[in-house]
């Protein structure tokens, strides 16, 4: 039975001794006291609740039950995993009688078990799906390759068990875990300590196959609830060296509890650590405190004690709808469960969601042998990118080539390629819009470092701005319907040759034109010169502009020779890190657009396209008259709107005084003159048709 008390309520335990001694009950002082929150009704001889770690054999019946469930096919874990789980529980007897819960995921059922566990016996996840869009990737040729910035690969299914498998060196795994814990702590710290963790976190059994220098490659890690868990670790505070294993003391890493500290202990050491910590905290949480400093120390211990346990839902089994798959799709199932649990404070950003789906699609394409292992490495962009690009005959220093490769792989429009996309998105038929997000997230991984280094003056990073621009449809129809491919055009001459070829035949269906278009699209957008359609373009361009999405702009450019030249120029200049150039209207030469005037590039480009594509004025006298009349009608409509605005302003601000004559005289006269002239050149009303 859990008794919930409000944090600042004073604890008054009524025993004879306490009535006499003033120091064990909190006295009013300058420090507010944190309250121990008991997890059950047991009390010791002093009527205090203390945290007890059950002895070794207390878990035996729980272990037996889970093994029986394994025989039934519901639980799918090895012996060591079952033992680990049961010994991590605060009350193993709960596991004996607990009912398993079933969760539906896209391709099967996940089974979970709910029980409270000891915080030091579990761990945070080593990677965090929610931060995918903020990471830096190996795919960016400018990123450095030290361990701090290398992204750990997402875990995969672990063979025949319902287990997640991480691969990587020990150093990488330890750093990743610590980094994740720190990240969620700073971004989403939870109020653990004064309160116990109340909402269950989701745990999954994890195995590490790195160097076996680590004593124990098996533990429970969080799928969801990393913030709560990391906050709990933080609240455990600074613990005395005596309860840590000896070798940590020597290495000096004994002060705070960190994921890497726990990962370095064997299962036995971890249990002993938990037991010793529980004993210590229970004693010090109820200690006498004579002054404020002692009280503060006691409060810290109470907070630690409240953080020693956490409710958990542990994934113990997975049954695929198609039994033949076994546990192969377990990792997807866990990820699907995580994405549905979007109730926590940090929801999946659209970018991260797209990134997760994109990686799943790539894995599926690889499984279906539609891409090679090198192709997969290039697309995912976390490791081996340079080597994979080189062996695919693409220059690894050019992120736009990689982006074109990504675009090509995700725009194949045949049944085999479409199936994984449809399945991962849960759709029965695809439209081009479904692919934009996937292409964007993977392609942009080649630019993460470059766009993050150059910080702009306002809060949104340049990467976010570029990602925002890509929200407006970067792809266009011909990329799906035509046959095109990515060639290694890595020199200026190669680009010029590409442009010449693009201008030759009917450009839209020409493979080279499409490649140039894609390269140009990334060149213009990642440098910030081409933006999503926006309101200010007209004012800047002083006239009507094409408000189409990115893809339609590039497609429009490919229809004209000036557009093709401009695309080629943009690719060359962006690769050289030079400002882009735009056509000067009078001299018809390419003039550099300085970086501070970037918005002009966008505006003038759109204006030029609008002029090219607006319907032609028929040059016959009748046609010219019709156009002139159009303009007159439009002006008059506009005048009427302006009149309405004037009336609205008067009404809103209660202006009832009539306007001064000098303000309106000339306008009135013009209006009546326009009217009179129009009447003289027009027939009277229909009914009196001139015969």
């Amino acid at each position, binding site marked *: 039975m859990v008794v919930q008390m409000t944090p600042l309520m004073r604890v008054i335990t009524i025993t004879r001794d306490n009535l006499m001694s003033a120091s064990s009950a909190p006295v009013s002082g300058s420090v507010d006291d944190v309250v121990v929150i008991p997890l059950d009704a047991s009390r010791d001889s002093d009527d205090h609740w203390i945290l007890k770690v059950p002895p070794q054999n207390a878990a035996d019946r729980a272990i037996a039950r889970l093994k029986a469930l394994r025989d039934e096919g519901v639980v799918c874990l090895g012996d060591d995993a079952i033992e680990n789980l049961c010994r991590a529980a605060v009350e193993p007897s709960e596991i004996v009688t607990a009912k398993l819960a079933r969760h539906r995921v896209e391709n099967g059922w996940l089974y979970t078990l709910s029980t409270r566990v000891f915080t030091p016996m579990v761990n945070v996840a080593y990677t965090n799906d929610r931060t995918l869009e903020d990471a830096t990737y190996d795919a960016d040729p400018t990123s450095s390759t030290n361990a701090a910035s290398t992204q750990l690969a997402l875990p995969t299914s672990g063979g025949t068990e319902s287990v997640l498998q991480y691969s990587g060196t020990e150093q990488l795994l330890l750093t990743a875990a610590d980094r994740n814990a720190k990240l969620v702590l700073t971004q989403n710290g939870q109020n653990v300590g004064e309160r116990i963790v109340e909402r269950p976190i989701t745990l999954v059994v994890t195995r590490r196959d790195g160097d076996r220098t680590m004593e124990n490659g098996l533990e429970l890690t969080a799928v969801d609830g990393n913030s709560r868990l990391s906050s709990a670790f933080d609240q455990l505070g600074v613990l005395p060296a005596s309860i840590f294993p000896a070798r940590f003391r020597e290495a000096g890493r004994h002060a705070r509890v960190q994921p890497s500290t726990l990962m370095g202990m064997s299962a036995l050491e971890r249990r002993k650590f938990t037991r010793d910590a529980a004993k210590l905290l229970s004693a010090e949480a109820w200690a006498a405190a004579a002054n404020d400093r002692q009280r503060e120390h006691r409060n810290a211990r109470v907070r630690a004690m409240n953080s020693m346990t956490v409710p958990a839902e542990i994934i113990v089994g997975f049954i695929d709808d198609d039994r033949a798959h076994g546990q192969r799709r377990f990792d997807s199932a866990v990820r699907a469960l995580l994405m549905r649990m979007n109730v926590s404070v940090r929801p999946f950003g659209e970018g991260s969601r797209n990134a997760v789906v994109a990686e799943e699609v790539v894995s599926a394409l690889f499984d279906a042998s539609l891409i090679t292992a090198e192709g997969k490495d290039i697309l995912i962009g976390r490791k081996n990118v340079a080597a994979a690009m080189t062996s695919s005959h693409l220059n690894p220093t050019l992120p736009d080539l990689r982006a074109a490769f990504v675009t090509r792989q995700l725009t194949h429009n045949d049944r085999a390629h479409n199936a994984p996309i449809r399945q991962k998105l849960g759709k029965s038929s695809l439209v081009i819009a479904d692919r934009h997000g996937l292409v964007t997230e993977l392609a942009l991984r080649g630019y993460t470092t470059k766009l993050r280094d150059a910080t702009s003056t306002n809060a949104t990073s340049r990467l976010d701005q570029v990602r925002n621009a890509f929200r407006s449809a970067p792809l266009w129809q011909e990329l799906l319907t035509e046959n095109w491919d990515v060639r290694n055009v890595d020199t200026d001459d190669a680009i010029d040759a590409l442009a010449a070829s693009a201008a030759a035949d009917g450009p839209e269906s020409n493979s080279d034109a499409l490649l140039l278009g894609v390269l140009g699209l990334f060149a213009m957008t990642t440098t910030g010169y081409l933006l999503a359609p926006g309101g200010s373009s007209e004012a800047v361009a002083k006239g009507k502009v094409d408000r189409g999405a990115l893809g339609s702009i590039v497609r429009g450019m490919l229809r004209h020779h000036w557009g093709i030249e401009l695309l080629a120029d943009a690719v060359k200049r962006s690769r050289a890190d030079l400002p882009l150039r735009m056509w000067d209207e009078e001299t018809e030469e390419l003039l550099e657009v300085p970086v501070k005037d970037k918005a002009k590039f966008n505006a003038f480009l759109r204006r030029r396209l609008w002029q090219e594509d607006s*319907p032609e004025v028929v040059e016959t006298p009748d046609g010219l008259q*019709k156009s002139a*009349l*159009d303009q007159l*009608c439009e002006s*008059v409509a506009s005048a*009427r709107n302006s009149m309405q605005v004037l009336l609205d302003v008067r009404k809103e601000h209660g202006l009832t005084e009539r306007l001064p004559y000098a303000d309106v005289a000339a306008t009135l006269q013009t209006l009546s003159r326009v009217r009179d002239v129009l009447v003289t050149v027009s027939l009277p009303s229909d009914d009196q048709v001139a015969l």
Partner: protein
Amino acid sequence: MTAFSYRHYAGFAEQWLLEERPHPILIGSLGIHPSEERKAIYIVVNSRGECCYVGQTRPRSRWSNAAAARLRQHLAEPSKRAEWASYWVIPLHEDTPNDVLNQLERRICLRLQIPLRHRRSR
């Protein structure tokens, strides 16, 4: 809007005009008189015969009687239901290019002083 002015606006379509239909169709009778066209301009009038809306149909799939279908979509909006009384159709050939359709719609709007809306450029 009269038969006479209808003929004039239909004349804007020049060679793309399918046929003239110089009679209004009551909104209540949508779908009772199926017609053949897939591309058309339609002009909606209220109970006083004043034009209040001009639109075009350009369905992606192959149905006929496109004007009625499009109008049915519009009539889901209560403000439109309240005002609209009948409509006139200018049916066009199947292969009318899109920019001709756009230009036609725009020109008729201007002549009738009906506000242009949702235009890609303003």
